[in-house]
């Protein structure tokens, strides 16, 4: 049995709520250690703590038997721990070797020494066993898979004992994955420890020596790979004994009249073929893993994505089209609450009133282009009272409001336009319990008038509490739809993971 390379004990971290609770984690020399869990289980937080990007509230770590307390990413790198994030950070106009030695290019009086650079790159490639990439190729000419390999090579060019890979395969196809895995096995044989995060069960069971499962910030188990089958793994991820929290206050306003019908929607990127029907008075939840295209779906419906294909039929006007401009979608009675309220949902430097009326200024508050200030203030004040937006006046800047109140302002603008369909992207992210409740009430009130909501949330409990139906988005398609009579948490989570399984074996 190989010796322990890295160990973490009793790691805890809170961000308002506990994200990790006394987690133990260890990696052996030459081990590929899989890490899996649903969205928000704490995988990324754990990795960031190991890489010195986040400081734990308590717990201790050791590497090669030495005390390890990284203050920064640099500390972690110096101790031989390298993290490779999901998003690539390569300079695509430079060559592979220039990217690898970007921080320390060999120069003589400012001129890059090409010869030396090539030699150094060859040495590194030899050391890390990467044989089939041309060091003088421009990164832009490489495929996604090769770029991923280069990104990992950059990490390995530094002294590496432990390599953390955060979902390295999300943008890779099957062939590229195979190539990556072959290389990871070479690295493993050289004694490097690898932490491998993935949502794809098959990948983990094919590649990993051991697998650790996190759920809601708690380590469920660390198991030897040979003892695991997919069903057991899914059981750990979802928590078979999780009680369903049926909300007694839920009241359905869902009708059988369709409000919006989407057929074969594709955006040329994440979405391949989405079809769904939204009914009047319905709250439809969209479940799916990170990267499954949930935000992209809402953007495509709202016309924020150019060049979508497929059709959208709004039953208010019976006209089939696809939106390619946001103002056309808005005019047709659709409203969007973007995921990131600060950068996309609000003009935070401006006041509450301006943010509330931005979508309806021409239609409701102008005469000959002149804003009817009194009208505007009255409407904004009424809305502020109705939505219980906690601010001293509508002239207060949105910046100074709490997250929950900001969210109410961002939704409020669509109440003035009389939107028939609201698309809510993570409406309750980062806001407290009381504000959450008032957002739910707001949604309920909205659908009680026969209007409809499509909601995306990473919090499945939340969607099961307030939605009429939940559609699962995976592999660019709606793969399964659950309603209140047949859903349970385990089945929905399984469905989210299922396509990945099928994809892997296909």
């Amino acid at each position: 049995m190989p010796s322990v390379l890295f160990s973490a004990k009793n790691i805890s971290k809170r961000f308002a709520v506990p994200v990790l609770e006394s987690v133990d984690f260890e990696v052996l020399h030459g081990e590929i250690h899989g890490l899996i869990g649903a969205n928000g289980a704490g995988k990324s937080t754990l990795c960031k703590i190991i890489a010195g990007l986040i400081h734990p509230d308590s717990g201790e770590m050791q590497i090669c038997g030495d005390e390890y307390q990284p203050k920064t990413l640099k500390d972690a790198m110096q101790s031989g721990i390298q993290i490779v994030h999901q998003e690539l950070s390569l300079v695509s106009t430079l060559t592979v070797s220039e990217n690898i030695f970007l921080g320390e290019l060999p120069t003589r009086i400012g001129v890059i020494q090409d010869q030396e650079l090539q030699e150094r790159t060859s040495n590194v490639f030899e050391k890390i066993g990467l044989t089939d990439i041309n060091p003088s190729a421009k990164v832009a000419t490489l495929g996604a898979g090769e770029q991923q390999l280069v990104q990992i090579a950059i990490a390995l060019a530094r002294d590496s004992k432990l390599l953390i890979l955060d979902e390295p395969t999300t943008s890779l196809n099957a062939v590229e994955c195979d190539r990556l895995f072959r290389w990871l096995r070479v690295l493993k044989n050289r004694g490097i420890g690898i932490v491998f995060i993935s949502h794809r069960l098959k990948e983990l069971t094919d590649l990993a020596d051991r697998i650790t499962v996190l759920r809601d910030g708690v380590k469920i188990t660390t198991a030897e790979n040979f003892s695991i089958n997919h069903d057991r793994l899914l059981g750990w991820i979802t928590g078979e004994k999780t009680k369903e929290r049926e909300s007694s206050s839920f009241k359905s306003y869902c009708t059988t009249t369709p409000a919006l019908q989407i057929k074969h929607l594709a955006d040329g990127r994440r979405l391949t073929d989405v079809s769904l029907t939204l009914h009047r008075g319905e709250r439809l939840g969209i479940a799916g893993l990170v990267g499954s295209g949930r935000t992209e779906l809402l953007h495509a419906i709202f016309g924020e994505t150019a060049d979508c294909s497929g059709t959208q039929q709004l039953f208010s006007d019976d006209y089939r089209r696809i939106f390619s401009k946001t103002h056309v979608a808005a005019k047709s009675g659709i409203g969007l609450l973007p995921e990131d309220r600060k950068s996309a949902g609000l003009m935070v430097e401006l006041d509450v009133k301006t943010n509330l009326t931005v979508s309806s200024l021409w239609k409701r508050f102008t005469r000959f282009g002149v804003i009817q200030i009194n009208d505007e203030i009255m409407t904004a004040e009424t809305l502020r009272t109705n939505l219980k937006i906690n601010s001293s006046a509508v002239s207060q800047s949105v910046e100074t409001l709490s997250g929950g109140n900001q969210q109410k302002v961002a939704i409020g603008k669509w109440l003035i336009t009389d939107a028939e369909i609201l698309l809510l992207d993570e409406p309750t992210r980062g806001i407290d319990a009381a504000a959450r409740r008032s957002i739910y009430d707001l949604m309920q009130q909205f659908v009680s008038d026969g209007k409809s909501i499509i909601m995306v949330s990473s919090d499945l409990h939340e969607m099961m509490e307030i939605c009429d139906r939940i559609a699962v988005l995976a592999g660019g398609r709606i793969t399964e739809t659950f309603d209140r009579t047949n859903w349970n948490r385990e089945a929905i989570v399984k469905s989210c993971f299922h396509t990945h399984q099928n994809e892997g074996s296909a």
Partner: protein
Amino acid sequence: MTTDHFSEIATLVSIANQIPDLTLVSVGMTFVLIARGIDLSVGSVLALSSAIFGVLIVDRELPLIVAGATAIIAAATCGLINGLISIKARIPSFIVTLGMLEVARGLTKLVTKSETKYIGTIIESISDPIPYLLISPAFVFALFTVFAGQFLLSRMAFGRYFIAIGTNENAVRLSGINVAPYQIATFVLCGILCGIAGVIHAAKLSTADPNAAVGIELSAIAACVIGGTSLMGGRGNVLSTFLGVLIIATLQTGLAQLGASDPIKQVITGSVIIAAVLTDAIKQRWNKSKA
């Protein structure tokens, strides 16, 4: 230095009658800056307008009103081209208007055959002080533009969207607003104001000078910045820009009266601009840290 009462008033009057063209250009620049663009072509477009105006009156003997309208339409077209290319093709307006700066100056020289055209006294009444009132119709018009511009910005839907787009274009688009027309409108407005400024400039000197208003873009941007307009968009107002114009003009006149040479004037004016931006940056940071 001793100055009696009469020469103080004379100085003020001379400043007031100097600044109408810079005022109009600065108001236009304020709109463009607020919507997070920039227009470097204002000086050349002004010169083009004044050249067209002069040539139509002198060579074609067209009536004043027709010549003026044509000149302003030409300037507005320059603004429209600036706006269309930078917004529709998503090219930074800095680059597009830098190109227009050359294009419009070249056209100006083509129109005037690189000669200064003397127009004559028929247009001087625009820029000459009204008897007993001492100020010129051009200055009155500039004042009117300042107040109209401020009204547009603070009370009209167009102005509201200029500010909103400059603050967070993304959020405005995701609020279901087609942002491009507003962004393009700022350039067209700026073009129109440069066109009017060109006519006023020609009237001031009774000539159409192909080298008119070289470098006025710097004074206009300076006036905006001194008035507190943010180069990052979203913040600014026309009244303050007018204050900026007054400060620059007073500084120039004052320095001239003190007998400062042109190079010294440049050094001091430049330093005042940097000081203004610096003060603004420090104030912003202080406000942020307080919030």
